[in-house]
């Protein structure tokens, strides 16, 4: 089978800017016009016109009538190569992806609601809530794949129709599995359309080719100037907050930028140094990779959005066979001092702890008077004060006011709050619904990382009300309990193990001869976090974990067979049952 290894950082290609071909924009309503986006790049024309004819107006069949993310275009090109005998050098394919992403792409406002798809987040998300979408339309698409794949595309009505036809042609059963499932409507229903017909009507109305956002964005899109020093803050699930710095430089080769990244985990102090490269698609879509030294196993993919104003870049860096590891990150331009946050974000009244304030270009040599934590919280001493961290020993008096308080460092506000509390009343385990996939035999394992956040009930003394105090990430003892779905449920004996760090390691894939009916090691369990306060009082929280079957086909366009195995799972390839 032919494969394309499309990687960030190919041959140098200037960022192409195209004025939109259409004069009028429409916010919504089915796009039934035949107005498309001309294809003017000769490389694209030469590579595609064997099947996609270009008319006198520069309109290329199919291609001129849709807009997508870089990943969306990459996936289309891979399908052309694998199923339609297109032969492309990887360098040419990269250039085509780049051209199409820039000139047939999405405006930032169009991508934002569905950005979780490209950021590879496993989240609870509802098409009905996010887009006021129809339940049947949701079912038509998400019977097989994420709705995120749909909401980050824009097409004319004819193109949405053709997309349905493509699915029917390649996957005939999709017609019954999704397109007409539960249809036709009951006799007497006011809407007698099949679900697929509702889908075409709704999608072409909600996601038309021509929009005001794209008209505006594409007319003035330009390469962002990002070189310089950026402050980094983020959260790595299971490991806590990270703070650091990123130096972004203009690249001399195929990438747009190179990066030097350094950050530290606030809880453990562990330092990380990385180097990376990135391309900016459509004037704002950051796609990069970074590594620790020359270690290919340390790869993190970077998917971020450069915000308008070029002062902030945010998104997710990830790794893992199911993209399950990696931090959420925000980069802030750091021309001057930038205060990023503090750690920990809560302390018990009557206790003493070390508080660290993190930033970039912070004033140095600060003393106890420069950290203002409000009345009742005294700064006893300053152990460290440099341009990145101020560390101070802090005591909260027994009668310090309970609640979140503003914090200032040398007169500058520190983002977030320090919360003084009396008791931990509730533990929230996230994700509240987690999923892991069996693996290690023939297929990779999909891990699930859990973490615990503490809450105090607040002044009203009631849990889960608006005045609850978020006390941040806390250390807990992890355990599992059976989630009884059937009589004599015994999943817990088979599904895998939950580590002391909240990382669930699934068991081996394949039929288990020791289990009834040769069942796989699938199952439902509770992951339980037990917090013990200084008085010995226990507070528990739990989340539902589903341990399920692998994926036997991987569509992510960057995923190829030669991809290195991330280090975090190589030690977990054992044969445990």
């Amino acid at each position, binding site marked *: *089978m032919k*494969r394309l290894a499309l990687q960030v950082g190919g041959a140098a290609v200037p960022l192409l800017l195209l004025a939109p071909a259409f004069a009028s924009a429409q916010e919504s309503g089915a796009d039934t016009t035949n107005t498309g986006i001309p294809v003017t790049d000769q490389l694209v024309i030469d590579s595609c016109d064997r099947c996609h004819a270009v008319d006198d107006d520069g309109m290329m069949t199919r291609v001129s009538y849709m807009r997508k993310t870089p990943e969306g275009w990459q996936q289309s090109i*891979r*399908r052309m190569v*694998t*199923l339609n005998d297109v032969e492309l050098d990887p360098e040419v394919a990269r250039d085509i992806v780049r051209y199409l992403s820039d000139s047939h792409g999405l405006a930032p406002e169009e991508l934002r609601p569905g950005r979780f798809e490209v950021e590879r987040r496993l989240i609870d998300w509802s098409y009905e809530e996010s887009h006021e979408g129809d339940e049947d339309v949701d*079912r038509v698409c998400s*019977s*097989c*794949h994420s709705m995120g794949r749909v909401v980050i595309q824009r097409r004319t009505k004819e193109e949405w129709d053709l997309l349905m036809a493509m699915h029917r042609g*390649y*996957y*005939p*059963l*999709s*017609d*019954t*599995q999704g397109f*007409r499932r539960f*249809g*036709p409507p009951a006799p007497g229903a006011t809407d007698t359309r099949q679900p697929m017909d509702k889908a075409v009507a709704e999608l072409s109305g909600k996601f038309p080719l021509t929009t005001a956002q794209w008209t505006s964005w594409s007319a003035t899109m330009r390469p962002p100037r990002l070189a310089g020093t950026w402050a980094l803050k983020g959260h790595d699930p299971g490991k806590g907050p990270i703070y650091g710095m990123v130096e972004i430089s203009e690249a001399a080769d195929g990438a747009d930028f190179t990066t030097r990244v350094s950050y530290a985990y606030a809880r453990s102090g562990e330092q990380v140094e990385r180097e990376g490269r990135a391309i900016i698609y459509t004037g704002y879509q950051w796609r990069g990779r970074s590594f620790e030294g020359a270690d290919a196993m340390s790869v993190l993919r970077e998917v971020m959005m450069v915000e308008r104003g070029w002062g902030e870049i945010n998104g997710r860096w990830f790794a893992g066979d199911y993209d399950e590891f990696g931090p959420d990150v925000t980069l802030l331009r750091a021309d001057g001092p930038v205060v990023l946050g503090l750690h920990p974000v809560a302390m018990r009244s009557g206790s003493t702890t070390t508080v660290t304030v993190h930033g970039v270009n912070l004033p140095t040599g600060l003393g106890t008077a420069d950290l203002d934590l409000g009345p009742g919280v005294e700064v006893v001493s300053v152990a460290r004060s440099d341009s990145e961290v101020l560390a101070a020993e802090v005591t909260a008096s027994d009668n310090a006011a309970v609640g979140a308080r503003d914090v200032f460092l040398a007169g500058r506000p520190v983002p977030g709050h320090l919360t003084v509390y009396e008791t931990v009343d509730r533990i929230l385990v996230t994700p509240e619904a987690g*999923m892991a996939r069996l693996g290690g*035999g*023939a*297929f*990779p394992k999909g891990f699930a990382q859990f973490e615990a956040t503490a809450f105090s009930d607040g002044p009203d003394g009631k849990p889960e009300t608006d005045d609850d105090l978020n006390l941040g990430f806390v250390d807990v003892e992890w355990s599992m309990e059976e*989630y009884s*779905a*059937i009589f004599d*449920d015994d*999943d817990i004996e088979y599904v895998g193990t939950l580590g002391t760090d909240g990382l669930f390691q699934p068991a081996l*894939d*394949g*039929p*288990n001869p020791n289990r009834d*009916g*040769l*069942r*796989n090691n*699938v*199952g*439902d369990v509770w992951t339980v976090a037990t917090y013990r306060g200084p008085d010995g009082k226990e507070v528990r929280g739990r989340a539902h974990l*589903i*341990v*399920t*079957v*692998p*994926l*036997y*086909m*991987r*569509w992510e366009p960057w*995923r*190829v*067979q030669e991809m290195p195995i991330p280090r975090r799972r190589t030690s977990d390839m054992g044969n445990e049952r």
Partner: protein
Amino acid sequence: MDHLKAINQKARRIQEHVAPPGGGSAAAGGAPVPSPLPADPGDLDVVGLESREGPHIPLGCSLVFAPGWEVDSTGGTAGLCQPVERDLFDCHLACFWPAHVPDQLNHAPDWTGKCAAAQKDWRKIDLIFP
């Protein structure tokens, strides 16, 4: 019903009960009652698992765990087709769950070529990157 023949008293009573008024009656002495002919001779054909309304969906364990590959219809794993290897070949051949299982029509025609029975040879099944 036309293909079935009542051979005891209870069956004959049922047959009599379901017969439309005037369509036939039990003969004296309990002789077999001929079934009323359906209005459409095509209705004589009975096809296993056939659904006369809506599309025909071959019955298989895939149906059990709709709506998702990962979870059953209750959102858990208890109702999943198990072991999954028992179901894989059907999914492959029918292009069921094409987002999760390689499809035999296009992307992976030889996916199962190395294993006669997935339940035994599941380690030989490849992960497919289209």
